[in-house]
């Protein structure tokens, strides 16, 4: 502090920062990246360990032996599912009751902002007059055609289901009478409706204050029927035991995550996303932990565990440790991000493999989408993870008994819990299933990157200051380091226009695509989802053209009297601080997203200025814009998964990801879309503005 309050030393320090700014920035950026890469090496990555006493030392003997029963249940479920075309609610109710559970159902419906075309499940709608666009099937953009095919399938599927479940619907929705539609008519309001079924196993001699959840999300096809079978067999086994201290809820949801969200909202009696659902009849107190199960084959070669939840939330590390314990105990092959964990951490191979897993986790967490239905539980402070059975070409396979035993062991240990899981880490990165990096060790990486922005801002601030001093000293200034309110005020006034315009662009990007989809579908040969994505891209591109042309007529009068550089410097200063603030906040809540955006946006942001090789800067800036980052992340993701994308596939995936991002914001409240459109995109436009300052 003494260093800063002494004006002489302060000036010396300032001069040092000014002179060494570029090397310091480069050093800081390189240090940030290097620190992140170093996270996979043993001093920074540690072995995981069980922190929770209640789950640590206690031994559990698993007795589940209902493999045949699980398979029989799965077969029945798949048959009923195929017959009715939707979740066989009556069969599930009957079966759950027959294994001795207290069974309830919940029906829900949700109006989507636009049709979700990556999942072929959203079929019910108020179909208007068949539109004049039936002939458009093969036209339009190249990436449209697979979606068209899916529409055709949906219409057929709808036709089948009509016979099966038409009687169950109580009304409200008007069922289509013609089922031969091959393309979506205009104005179809996308209503999704479904039914969740859940059974509660009441713990004897307990007052239903706490519960655990085992959930299976069911999509439109009959995948996951083995998971339902295992759930029922486990329920039957658990029902016969007397050691339960917490109620156990066995939940089967329809429409994957939408059903889970509807159930969770109804359970907690809140309405976050505008879901309409019937209130729950049965409850079982505060949910302590949840496990989601996805199995689509009778045998598995490995179990994959997913931890990343909505908005990058993670469950307590102890839950993952618990899973890992039972993987080891049962000799199961367990993977994280689809990767086996490396055995040898001393040589270079182990950490390199760990780095792949770590990067995959960072990309997944940064996407902010729930990777499995566990992701939605985290919002309600219910620790949860998803187990996925993988059936690959490996020789050795495990049957459902092995998976069931692992689940039984996990539930019995969770049953021992005296408190909510809280002992272990909530913020961590995982380079392998048995290795983790805690928040204290990974935050410096983001800190170094953000330091670049700080240093640049400091430099600009001091340059602005010196310019002022330079202008005003001949006029006889009273003191050398007095901040000058009048000239500052003028500088800020010139910033108002570009700031407002870029924020307005962001707002338009957030609001218009969904709002204007009907206008777009009327005037252009596109479906709703395509309209949304195309509008999104159009507004995004339009933003590049707009702001740097509009700031001049508004602000040139004021700026003209000042030094020519002052305008863009002040704007860049504001933009740098704005970006640093945003990235800092994001990195605190979702490190992966913050780090990813900082890695890409920081160099271009630091370099942007209206002199020098402008085209190079412009190219760099475009390549590091949020949308380009998303595209690049998709390529990197598939590369790491060893399934590289071709350019066309990548583009299609990118468009689908945009649609998914918007949809997930509306259906689950994922924050990535508003964050990018309202926060980072306007900020990035400011740099674009700086670059083309005249």
């Amino acid at each position, binding site marked *: *502090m003494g260093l*800063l*309050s002494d*004006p*002489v030393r*302060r000036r010396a320090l300032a001069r040092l920062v000014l002179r060494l700014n570029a090397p310091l920035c480069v050093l800081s950026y390189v240090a940030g990246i290097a620190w992140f890469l170093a996270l996979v090496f043993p001093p920074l990555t540690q072995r995981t360990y069980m*922190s929770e006493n209640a789950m640590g030392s206690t031994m559990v003997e698993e007795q589940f032996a209902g493999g045949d029963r699980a398979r029989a249940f799965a077969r029945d479920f798949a048959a009923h599912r195929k017959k009715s075309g939707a979740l066989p609610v009556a069969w599930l109710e009957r079966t759950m009751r*027959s*294994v*001795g559970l*207290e069974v309830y159902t919940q029906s829900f419906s949700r109006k989507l902002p636009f049709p979700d075309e990556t999942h072929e499940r959203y079929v019910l709608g108020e179909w208007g007059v068949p539109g004049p666009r039936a002939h458009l099937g093969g036209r339009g953009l190249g990436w449209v055609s697979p979606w068209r095919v899916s529409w055709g399938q949906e219409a057929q599927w709808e036709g089948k289901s009509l016979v099966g479940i038409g009687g169950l619907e109580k009304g409200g929705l008007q069922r289509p009478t013609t089922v031969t539609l091959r393309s979506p008519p205009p104005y179809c309001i996308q209503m999704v409706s479904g039914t969740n079924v859940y059974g509660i196993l*009441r713990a*004897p*001699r307990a*007052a*239903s*204050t*706490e519960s655990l959840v085992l959930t299976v999300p069911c999509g439109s096809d009959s995948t996951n029927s083995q998971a339902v079978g295992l759930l029922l067999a486990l329920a039957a086994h658990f*029902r*016969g035991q*007397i050691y339960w201290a917490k109620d156990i809820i066995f939940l089967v949801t329809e429409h994957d995550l939408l059903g889970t969200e509807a159930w969770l909202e109804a359970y*907690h*009696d*809140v309405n976050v996303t505008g879901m309409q659902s019937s209130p729950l009849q049965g*409850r079982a*107190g*505060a949910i302590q932990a949840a496990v989601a199960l996805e199995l689509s084959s009778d045998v598995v070669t490995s179990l994959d565990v997913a931890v990343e939840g909505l908005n990058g939330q993670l469950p307590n590390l102890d839950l993952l440790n618990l899973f890992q314990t039972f993987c080891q105990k049962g000799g199961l092959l367990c993977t994280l991000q689809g990767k086996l964990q490396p055995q040898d951490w001393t040589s270079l191979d182990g950490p390199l493999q760990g780095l792949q897993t770590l990067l995959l986790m960072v990309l997944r967490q940064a996407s902010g989408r729930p990777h499995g239905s566990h992701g939605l539980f985290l*919002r*309600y*402070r219910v620790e949860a993870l998803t187990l996925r059975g993988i059936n690959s070409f490996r020789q050795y396979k495990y049957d459902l008994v092995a998976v069931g035993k692992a689940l039984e062991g996990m539930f019995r240990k969770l049953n021992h819990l*005296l*408190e*909510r899981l*809280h*002992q272990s880490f909530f913020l961590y990165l995982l380079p392998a299933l048995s290795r983790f990096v805690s928040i204290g060790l990974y935050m410096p990486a983001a800190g170094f990157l953000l330091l670049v922005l700080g240093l640049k801002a400091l430099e600009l601030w001091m340059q602005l200051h010196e310019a002022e001093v330079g202008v005003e000293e001949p006029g006889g200034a009273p*003191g*050398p*380091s*007095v*901040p000058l309110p009048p000239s500052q005020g003028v500088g800020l006034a010139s910033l108002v226009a570009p700031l407002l315009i870029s924020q307005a662009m962001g707002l338009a990007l957030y609001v218009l695509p969904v709002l204007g989809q009907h206008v777009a579908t009327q005037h252009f040969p596109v479906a709703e989802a395509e309209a949304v994505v195309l509008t999104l891209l159009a507004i995004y591109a339009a933003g590049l053209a707009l702001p740097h042309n509009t700031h001049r007529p508004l602000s040139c009068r004021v700026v003209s009297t000042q030094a020519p550089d002052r305008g863009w410097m002040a704007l860049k200063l504001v933009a740098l601080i704005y970006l640093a603030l945003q990235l800092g906040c994001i990195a605190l809540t979702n490190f992966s997203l913050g780090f990813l955006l900082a890695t890409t946006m920081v160099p271009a942001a630091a370099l942007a200025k209206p002199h020098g090789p402008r085209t190079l800067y412009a190219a760099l800036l475009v390549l590091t814009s949020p949308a380009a980052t998303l595209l690049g992340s998709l390529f990197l993701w598939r590369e790491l998964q060893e399934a590289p994308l071709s350019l066309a596939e990548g583009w299609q995936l990118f468009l689908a990801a945009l649609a998914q991002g918007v949809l997930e914001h509306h259906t689950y409240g994922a924050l990535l879309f508003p964050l990018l459109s309202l926060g980072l995109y306007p900020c990035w436009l400011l740099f674009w503005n700086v670059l083309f300052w005249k």
Partner: protein
Amino acid sequence: MAAAMPLALLVLLLLGRRGWCLAEPPRDSLREELVITPLPSGDVAATFQFRTRWDSELQREGGLSVLLKADRLFHTSYHSQAVHIRPVCRNARCTSISWELRQTLSVVFDAFITGQGKKDWSLFRMFSRTLTEPCPLASESRVYVDITNYNQDNETLEVNPPPTTTYQDVILGTRKIYAIYDLLDTAMINNSRNLNIQLKWKRPPENEAPPVPFLHAQRYVSGYGLQKGELSTLLYNTHPYRAFPVLLLDTVPWYLRLYVHTLTITSKGKENKPSYIHYQPAQDRLQPHLLEMLIQLPANSVTKVSIQFERALLKWTEYTPDPNHGFYVSPSVLSALVPSVVAAKPVDWEESPLFNSLFPVSDGSNYFVRLYTEPLLVNLPTPDFSMPYNVICLTCTVVAVCYGSFYNLLTRTFHIEEPRTGGLAKRLANLIRRARGVPPL
């Protein structure tokens, strides 16, 4: 506490009676009774009652008490024990009194586990014993089995051995039929040396469970996050045509700060104004909130009572040793006079079976019910106690020091002051210069 009270009383009486009354009392009867009834959830409840005059011998060897085998009784979903002692008159003029001791044990058997997936039961399956003889001391030893047909069709269930007599009564407003097995009837035991009562459902008992009671309730916490929440109580009135009032008593700990203006009561989508509200606000660390309301429940309706609260921050010594478990909020208490479907006759306590005393009848047209909802578990904002507190304190100190210095630095302007070189000589020179009228150095 509730268990300690009768015990203390019991000890007191034990000491007292011996001293007062040395006269030989008339040998009083021991009455024992087992009632088995199905529950709406599908489970089976068994209630034992033993009633005797205090002065008679208490040890029992045969009779119903052979069924009381600990490992089976603790393998159940629920059990409760009670001891009642009351004075009774020995003669019509009540010149001397005697003490009556009544012991009850109620057990709920999980019919699903004991019946291997079916809801049939037998004494042997439930207790792993059968009845072999009546208690030699008992003047009355009976087993009552609820065989009420809830379906309109006859013959949905079957008890074995077939009962010799049945007994009809109005219990909690509905008519019930009980099969009676009198152990003192020698023919009953002598047939096969033991009595194993069995009940079989003739059809899968999907709709055979007794109807849900007219009044039941459910309570839960809604909302998420650690700042706010809502307490919701659902009151169900399943009576087809009668509305009745319910007195709802809530005591909520002070660390849930209730917002009374958010109290909403809705039935059938409309607001339901309580006819009486008594609210006593909480005082921090002294007394909880007390909220008492008289609510009219319309016929065949669900009434939702909800009130929002804010979670308070406790002092760090006030947290329990397991703060992340959550804090319990005690159940709401519902008291109501529930209208009966069938009018009850006034009963003669001495003549009717013992279990009648478990169901007090206020008058013929309705009966009194007191219900407790489930307790709730609410998480409060909890500091991370696994992190030592000194670390938190240190961090706070560092932050405070940094903040102070930075604030100091940012809100002040610095001027460079020329160092005073020369001191005295310079001052003297300035004095001279001033005298000369020349600007000072």
